């Protein structure tokens, strides 16, 4: 049971649509509400190049976290010569605290199938895979039923809308690692391999699943693509911010309540948090972006929720999770927990991943345990910079965010903890941190 937060009536909902009592798997009801109109337009009036042009005009960015322009991927995949191309819908939902994508698949299975079909049409692919977390059994059941019905009705299958083109859509349950959300890891799992990221370039759009050009797209991105073809790029551009149009699903945890909401990109964090209930006291901190998110002070509550803006302040859209901590939360404890989570999930393939993230975790543990080394503050800065510079995949880069955002915004707390606690321990030597060098003094009293 996922609670959907009420959003203002004026906010458009391209993703979740109008909340209706109809069964989401009922194809007739969905078609009556406009499902597959976008695919019909794509197949009957727009050539594949026309679809890419329409997506480009809409300014659609990927909702998987990084906000990469979707049209660029499709163009590359379509232009790369190959005997076969694939579309992979990334419905894994790596963050265990977030269910936005699973909810979308449950509520709007035909929107996703239409988006998949449009992407396949645009790049010339005849087989698509929707990867879903194996524990989301209801989403899998509904998608499988919806695929069966759409195939029967000729929207997908052996002959897509009488165009003579084939499109087989398959649901693949995957599970067992946080990293499966990362696109190259997901492709590895779909190939039956150990889930470790691949060096890019070549990007999956050039060389992806089974070495064929593959478009990996978040569930929301594909549902939005279908909406764009149905309603037009201009209508999409009218929503959200100019740099990142459209809406996105967020999982909000305020101090007064929590739930999932569809919000236009560029909505200030404060407005999003208030959807989950107003609370007089400002939160101590915000965690934006999931386990590898940035920890932000309450002064940044007016930041617009969008890709570039969040990156500029040291957070990211990530899994779409926005958490407000209680008024007396310990940000350093939180940063340690998050770093431990991310280090534990790192795949182990490269040095920054296997060792760098673990050292970050150890530094955080030392600081919180009151046994910091005099060099720890500098080490944290240097190590984070090295990890960012040498990482193979984004996971390591993002793993530095919790600690580096605490460094950036909560310096007094960090400095207090960097002072060793040995003072009150009688008989022990006192170690003072002064200008990064270590000096020992005789115990006082």
């Amino acid at each position, binding site marked *: 049971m996922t609670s959907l937060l009420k959003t203002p009536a004026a906010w458009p909902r391209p993703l979740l649509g109008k909340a209706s009592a109809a069964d989401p798997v009922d194809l007739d009801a969905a078609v009556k509400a406009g499902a597959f109109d976008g695919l019909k337009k794509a197949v009957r009036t727009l050539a594949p190049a026309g679809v890419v042009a329409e997506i480009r005009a809409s300014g659609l960015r990927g909702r998987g976290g990084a906000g990469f322009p979707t049209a660029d991927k499709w163009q590359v995949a379509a232009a790369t010569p190959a005997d076969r191309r694939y579309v992979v819908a990334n419905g894994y939902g790596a963050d265990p605290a977030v269910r936005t994508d699973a909810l979308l698949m449950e509520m709007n299975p035909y929107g996703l199938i239409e988006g998949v079909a449009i992407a396949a049409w645009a790049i010339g692919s005849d087989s698509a895979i929707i990867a879903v977390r194996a524990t989301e059994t209801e989403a899998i059941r509904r998608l499988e039923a919806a695929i069966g019905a759409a195939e029967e009705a000729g929207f997908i299958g052996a002959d897509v809308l009488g165009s003579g083109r084939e499109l087989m859509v398959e649901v693949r349950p995957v599970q067992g690692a946080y990293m499966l959300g990362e696109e190259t890891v997901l492709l590895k799992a779909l190939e039956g*391999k150990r889930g470790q990221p691949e060096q890019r370039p070549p990007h999956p759009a050039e060389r992806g699943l089974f070495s064929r050009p593959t478009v990996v797209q978040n569930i929301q991105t594909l549902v939005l693509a279908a909406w764009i073809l149905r309603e037009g790029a201009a209508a999409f551009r009218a929503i959200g911010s100019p740099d990142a149009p459209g809406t996105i699903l967020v999982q909000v*945890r305020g101090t007064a309540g929590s739930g999932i909401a569809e919000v236009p990109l560029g909505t200030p964090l404060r407005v999003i948090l208030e959807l989950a209930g107003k609370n007089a006291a400002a939160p101590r901190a915000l965690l934006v972006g999931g386990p590898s998110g940035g920890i932000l002070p309450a002064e940044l509550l007016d930041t617009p929720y969008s890709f570039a803006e969040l990156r500029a302040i040291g957070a990211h859209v990530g899994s779409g999770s926005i958490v407000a901590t209680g008024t007396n939360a310990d940000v350093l404890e939180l940063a340690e927990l998050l770093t431990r989570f991310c280090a534990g999930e790192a795949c182990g393939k490269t040095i920054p991943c296997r060792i760098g993230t673990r050292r970050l975790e150890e530094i955080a543990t030392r600081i919180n345990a009151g046994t910091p080394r005099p060099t720890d503050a500098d080490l944290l800065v240097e190590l984070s910079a090295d990890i960012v510079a040498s990482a193979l995949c984004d996971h390591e880069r993002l793993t530095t965010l919790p600690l580096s955002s605490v460094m950036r915004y909560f310096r007094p707390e960090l400095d207090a903890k960097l002072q060793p606690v040995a003072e009150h321990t009688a008989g022990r030597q006192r170690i003072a941190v002064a200008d990064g060098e270590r000096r020992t003094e005789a115990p006082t009293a």
Partner: protein
Amino acid sequence: MSLIPGLGIVRGMSLTLRRFFQPKVTHLYPEMPAEIPPKFRGRLQLLYDEHGTLKCETCFQCAQACPIECIDMGGVDSKGRYAVHWGASETYGERREESALRRSGRTVPDAAYEHWSSVDLGLVDAILHDADHDPKRLLEILAATQAAYGYLPVAALKRISFGTGTWYAMVYGTASYYDNFRFQPPATTDGAASGRGQVEADYLAAIGRPN
């Protein structure tokens, strides 16, 4: 017997004399480093960190990368889950394993291995048959095997390796990566979550479960 008595000695001594004045070939190691064949990589040795714990995480990457399958890992993996074969004698034992024999071109069945396996391999054979012995469907095969046995017995993993023509290191290395696979029968009592499971539980406790 030579015609002139003593000629052999003269010849021998002349060789000795000539060699005596030739430049020496003995390398004065370590002043002069030895010449090493370009592909020599030394002896494989696992390292310990400053706390005395093995640095190896049993990630099986080296075993997967080794083109002639001479590396196989032992120890406990990074999640503390599985004690694999370990120790010097095992090193030689590995060479006698089915996959190694197969790769070396010998078809000798390993009696010790057959004797040792106590699980019914008929189940995994049926799973392999259903999956076309297709290594691309490895995750599906592993999931079905775990469903059949309750865990992934080593003997079944070896059968999968044999049946799909995939190195054992690939099969084990893949299975050990994903949290949902286990290599021991599930505990009969509810134990506390450990390793990564515990970290995820801590994260959800701090952030809140999806609702």
